[in-house]
């Protein structure tokens, strides 16, 4: 596949209270960002286990964004801290199995930060576009 034609598919895990609300706010403010994001709503970023992240890559996602409340603002007090701890281990693991760790991003996006949400999707889409297709995507790679 020609890299210029490559449209990455990005899975975005958004917590219901902050990141998902910010995504809605980006919409009500009519901020425009690339149409590459496929959102999965979860109640808390703390719900996003290693298995779900890996499953997203195994299924073929070119990038995975996990977005939750800012530290100290978690609707469930400290669910987002579990998430950030998980990332410490998850990034090197991805590298070890041949998935560039840059394909996984964690962002804290508060409910009032619609513009940060839009900007995150813009910059992450560009990062992932630069990395090219996920090597595990069997169908796209004709495997």
């Amino acid at each position, binding site marked *: 596949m020609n890299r210029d034609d490559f449209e990455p*598919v990005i*899975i975005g895990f958004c917590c*219901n*209270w902050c990141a*998902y*609300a910010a*995504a*809605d706010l*980006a*919409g*009500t403010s*009519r*901020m*425009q*960002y690339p*149409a590459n*994001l*496929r*959102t*999965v*709503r*979860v*109640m*808390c970023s*703390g*719900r*996003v*286990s290693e*298995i*779900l992240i890996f*499953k*997203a890559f195994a*299924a*073929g*996602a070119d990038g995975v964004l996990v977005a939750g409340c800012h530290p100290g*603002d978690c*609707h*469930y*007090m*400290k*669910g987002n801290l*579990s998430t950030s701890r*998980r990332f410490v281990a998850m990034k090197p693991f991805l590298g070890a199995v041949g998935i560039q760790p840059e394909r996984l991003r964690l962002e804290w996006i*508060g*409910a*009032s930060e619609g513009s940060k949400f*839009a900007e995150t999707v813009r910059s992450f889409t560009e990062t992932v576009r630069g990395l090219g297709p996920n090597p595990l*995507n*069997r*169908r*796209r790679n004709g495997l």
Partner: protein
Amino acid sequence: MDEPRIGVFVCHCGRNIGAYVNVPEVVEYVKGLPNVVHAEHNLYTCSEEGISAIKKGIQEYSLNRVIVASCTPRTHEPLFRSACEAVGLNKYLFEFVNIRDQCSWVHMNEPEKATEKAKDLIRMGVAKARLLEPLEEVEIKVAPSSLVIGGGVVGMSAALNLAQQGFDVHLVEKESQLGGILRNIHRLYPTNQETTKLTNPIIEKVKNHPRIQTYLSSKVREVAGFIGNFDVTVDRDGRESKFNVGTIIVAIGAEELKPIGQYSYGEMPDVLTQLELEERIKNGESVGKDVVMINCVGARVPERTYCSRICCMNAIKNASLIKESNPGAKVWILHRDLMTYGVDFENYYREAMERGVRFIRYSLERPPEVIGNGKVEKIRVYHALRRTELELSCDMLVLTTPLIPRQDNQEISKMLKVSLDEFGFLLEAHLKLRPVEFAMDGIYICGSAKWPTDVAEGISQAYAAASKAAGPLRTGYVKAEAITASVNEDICSGCGTCVSLCPFGAMELVSKGGKRVARVTVAQCKGCGTCGAACPSGAVTMNHFRNEEIMAQLEAPWYNEAFVESKGGVIGEPG
């Protein structure tokens, strides 16, 4: 569970979705997805017509799963869920797909990509809906009493309202007397009524009401539990009282900014804030003959961008009162804009001008300067409309400063698990759809703790909060959200990871059949799923967000078109 029979309702939302997403094309596509037995589009699915289309669809096609693809679940999920419930479909068999706020509105220049994305999102929704399970909500008994935090006019009004409806109220005030910030305010705009004429009768009623128990010089130390069943600990000089309430109202107000270091405040004797001026007037002290007021001191500046709304009127009130008691006095108000909304406030502003109060507009780029040696003598101001510099003689400078959030907001936020906004005010659940409520069930907010409010607005909000807080008390029970954790005791190894992670104390280890297993207190579980994500044995299931459900969503974007045609294909299984 029977074979899934899914109905999909795609909303045009007028032109909001329909103008950017090709809705008919999406509907045709959706009809081909496995287990979808019915798909249609509606101009507005949330209209009465749309709601009855859902109900009719469920009955006509024997739907056992419903998907609405429209705005956002954050505002409209309850409506569609209740439509399902109305015709006997468990509301947890409903799935929302967001194709407006997170699709059509953010891809307005790319209609083709927006349409493709909408198809993907609905396909993910279908993949999840196939696996949804019905859930039952537990009923929780509600203790028929309330806690009101804050004994200002707003808190007292809320407490009285609840007491008059027949509920017991615990009113906690940190100062040694009731009245809040109004105790320092001389008269109230726009009627110029003496503050005590309003507050004294309210204080008397609160003191004498048999259903209100007041705790003065007291702080709420701890709140545990959940709607219907909050365990409250109140502390007064180390002596604790404990009680149980069903709902909580927060009315802790705000405080005036003290502009240390600005315009010689704190350095020269006759530079004071509006609240300090009020006290002087109230005590009958002299207030100067050449009075200059500067508005927006510390407000609408880069480090504090908000407008505190009530200070313009307060400045105009004090200026008028000075003119009234001493018509020979000169009173200037230096302002940037004037917030005098509504007919009454505009009249009040006009009357002040007629009385001789002079208004000069200054700009933030060239703020006024204080001239004087040891005491204020003159104010130099650049008249932004006349574009000239003026020097006003001045023997008293009054700084109009905004209301700022109390430090207590931080404590309240942590204790009640409610959010703060970017400035530190307490954040209500939704400006329009859930005013005076917190996102946390059973806790309500009114008055200036939320945003600067004047007395009339504060009292209206108090009544609104009281009527919201009375709802569950009157019904006597609430239904707990069924999105909670559940434990498969057979595979639980009793390690306690979930217990240490749960911030709500909803997980505990118990002995069962000779081994230790985790147990969920459903009423305390908020459904975040952190325990389930961390469980090393996979024994904790997050209802409605189960691994299978989310994994099916994750695979759906790559779902092979060939499967659509063969029908019966499994969306969650890649080819």
